[in-house]
């Protein structure tokens, strides 16, 4: 068996690219919908549209191609911030994301990199 060096591969490639996003999104979204800490933020949303947003978020957090700006993050979450979205909810989402990747067999080191990308959006998401 030929073992390819992954040192030059991007995070997105190492995770498995768009196929990995596709594999993760339903599991991640299910976790979010049943988690008491954050579920209520998703009560009144259109599920198909929300799944599209989750995919875009995962693609970004996986280091994939995206065109989010900090301003989009702020305006997109302003309604939730008004509903009380705070650091504890942000932490819960990052935890659920890590749990999803763990179940998929992703190495801890890569999960750490994903969490770091998610972390970089905290101030914008929470409107700080």
């Amino acid at each position: 068996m030929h073992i390819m060096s992954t040192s030059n591969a991007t995070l997105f490639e190492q995770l498995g690219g768009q196929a990995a996003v596709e594999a993760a999104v339903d599991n991640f979204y299910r976790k979010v919908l049943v988690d008491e800490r954050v579920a209520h933020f998703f009560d009144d949303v259109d599920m198909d549209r929300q799944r599209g947003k989750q995919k875009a978020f995962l693609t970004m957090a996986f280091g994939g191609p995206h065109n989010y700006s900090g301003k989009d993050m702020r305006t997109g979450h302003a309604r939730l911030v008004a509903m009380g979205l705070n650091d504890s909810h942000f932490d819960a989402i990052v935890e659920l994301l890590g749990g999803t990747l763990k179940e998929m067999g992703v190495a801890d080191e890569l999960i750490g990199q994903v969490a770091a990308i998610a972390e970089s959006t905290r101030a914008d998401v929470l409107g700080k």
Partner: protein
Amino acid sequence: MPSVTWAGRSHQLAAGETVLDGLLRNGIEIAHACKAGSCGSCMLRAVAGEIAARAQVGLKDSWKTRGYFLSCMCVPEASLELAEVGAEARIPAQITAVDHLSDDVLRIRLLPERAFEFRAGQYLTLIRDSGLARSYSLASLPNERELELHVRLIPHGRMSTWLNQPETIGSNVQLQGPSGECFYVPGREEQPLLLAGAGTGLAPLWGIVHDALQQGHTGPIHLFHGALRPGGLYLREQLEALAASRSHFSYTPTVLNGPEEGRISVGAIDSIIGTTYPKLVGWRGFVCGDPTLVRSLKRKLFLAGIAMGDIYSDAFLPSV
């Protein structure tokens, strides 16, 4: 503010106003029903001017290139010159039969003047000469000569009251459509299918069940139909007979209220499904009917393990 030209006259639109609202405000009768970009009855054609993509979502490409758009979804940035939709977008049809399936559900049969192509489970919009328009799901199959709709009788409902009278038989109407993404896609024929709906949500599900059987689906097919009372469980005998003759088809009638009676399950349809199937990993789901119920069933099926891409739904929007 942009203006719209209709029948040679120009009308100013208010800030943020849709083309449909602007025309209605000026006393121009435009067929419309849902005002949510779903039923398609307010479709118009722009002969001059730019139409934003969001006013053309769901329309056929050939219609888009001819300038067709949904006037309820269109807030133009610049002026438009409008025309009515052409004959190619609407098919004349005659009402051939009207009968009661239950106290408050009518079965309407229609004979279109030329072929009306659709997939079982999709819906059409029925338009009267007066411009009154309503969307209904198709219960018939594409290879049948007549189209079949199930219409819930709504107290003082203008369309359903008109349909519910003997002299309506023989009347001519216009059909537009089809629309909707809730239908059986051939392939993965061993996959188990779960179908759930309440009231006339049965219409598209009836079509989808028969379509899947005709196309040779081999996996289990389980239909749950909900009603408030046993009397609302229309087509029950036919579905019980189908379940008796096709071993891989099951049918569970459910009522919200009422005594246990025969094979009817009592309770909320989503809890009954949850008790029957706590896990639905690998299934395909179809849910139709009242928007609140559709939303709750979709969530239930998703949490039980059905992939989002395997859930097909049609929420019946109210007319406004």
